[in-house]
């Protein structure tokens, strides 16, 4: 169980998150949707402390951190409980696919090399890259790089995996393979928070959908409610714009 309580974040005088409360149950897949600039990325980055929240609290099971004045070792622990899949993949460019996945296991979790290798190979096979173990990121397509990114996150065995628009940097024909992998691991009961603009995908894999705008959660609920019978006017407008936009692009 993950609780976010009153998370706020300002950049200078610009308040980007205005008090976010969110509860995520174990094994749940949460999709966050909303217009760009609404603070979705910032929220994910706050959860694993790539961005320092101005205030608020996060608790993951028994463990909790107060963001007002967090301890250094709590920050480190928080980062180890979450893993992130980035929009731009952010693979380590000087390491092979296999080494990218092994890195955290060996360096952070101090798992013996052989064991780390075995686990990493299994994960790369799971994301369909069993034949690319020794390729460097520069030799992989965007979709393949992102799948390595997913394997890297899975390897850490985190309490929650955070996805920040995992397919929005990809060519359209590569989106499917990455969504396919995410869908597959979602079925395994791994807790995930996914920021996405792929509405059909969100509706399909998420157990819970959150609509954010202007730094607040406007509405949240099960996908069939949010996508079919939203209560809030702003949610309706956003979704309408979205469906009409994608209708045009077909």
């Amino acid at each position, binding site marked *: 169980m993950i609780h976010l309580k009153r998370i706020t974040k300002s950049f200078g005088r610009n308040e980007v998150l205005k008090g976010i409360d969110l509860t995520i149950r174990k094994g749940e897949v949460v999709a966050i949707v909303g217009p760009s600039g609404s603070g979705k990325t910032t929220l994910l980055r706050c959860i*694993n402390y790539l961005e320092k929240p101005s205030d608020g609290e996060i608790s993951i099971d028994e463990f909790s951190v107060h963001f007002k004045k967090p301890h250094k070792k709590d920050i480190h622990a928080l980062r180890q409980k979450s893993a992130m899949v980035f929009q731009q993949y*952010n693979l380590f460019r000087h390491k092979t696919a296999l080494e990218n996945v092994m*890195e*955290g296991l060996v*360096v952070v979790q101090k798992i013996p090399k052989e064991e780390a290798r075995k686990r990493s190979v299994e994960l790369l096979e799971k994301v369909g890259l069993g034949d690319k173990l020794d390729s460097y990121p520069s*030799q992989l397509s965007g979709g393949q790089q992102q799948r390595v990114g997913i394997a890297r996150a899975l390897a850490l065995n985190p309490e929650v995996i955070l996805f920040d628009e995992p397919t929005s940097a990809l060519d359209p024909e590569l989106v499917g393979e990455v969504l396919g992998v995410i869908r597959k691991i979602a079925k395994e009961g791994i807790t995930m928070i996914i920021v996405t603009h792929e509405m059909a995908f969100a509706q399909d894999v998420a157990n819970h959908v959150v609509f954010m705008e202007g730094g607040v959660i406007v509405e949240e609920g099960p996908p069939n409610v949010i996508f079919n019978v939203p209560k809030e006017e702003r949610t309706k407008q956003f979704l309408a714009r979205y469906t009409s936009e994608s209708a045009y692009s077909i």
Partner: protein
Amino acid sequence: MGTPFDIAYVYEYFLKLLPFIRISLLIVFGSIVVGMGVGLLVALPRLYKVPVLQRFSQVYASFFRGTPILIQLFLIYYLLPELLKLVSIDVTKVPVLIFVILAYGLHSGAYFSEGIRAAVSAVDRGQVEAAYAVGMTGYQAFTRIVFPQALAISIPILANLIIATLKDTSLAFTLGVMELTGKAQTLFTVSRHMLESYLALAIVYFILSFFLEKMFNFAERRLLKHEAPIAKEDKVPMGRKWLNRTLDPDIALSKGGAGV
């Protein structure tokens, strides 16, 4: 001048110059070692935006890049001992070679600091964040992710700098150090075959530069193997292509050698 050109002298002088390669290379490598240390010290405050030190680093880099190396040599050799005398440190017994290495070291340190800054900034921020996200500490992220890539990126910068310093050492003779250029000048004072002497000197410098360049090309290929596109798909020479993309042209680190 005045004596007719005689190719035999070129060969003779070439052989006579060879032993002095040692001195020139000693100056080069001594000053590169000093320069790397100084460069790192000067680069860190700017990389981490340390308030006052950052300004100091800027002034340092501007001074050593903006004034002729010849003047820096004189200032270090003549002015520094005077200043040290004020705090009663006597350096009159220190060999001139040490001053020369110090001067070139401080000079190349300014270029190193720029190079280190450019190389570290060329490793994109996203990779550092990914390192934090997998749970690495700042130190682990630097040593395992940033540094190895920055090193590979800086190989061409390092190569330029070493070759530039090699050429700059030709001014050390002005303080009486008998390195390659100093020796070449003594060779023709007797025989008056100046042209032959300078030609032999040029050949020596050329050969040295050539081998240094080859060496660095090799190192670059080794260290940047991860940026190699799959061979048959792409014929652009590896490494460089990626470099052009990541290194900001504004911080191009060209350095042409003695700016007198």
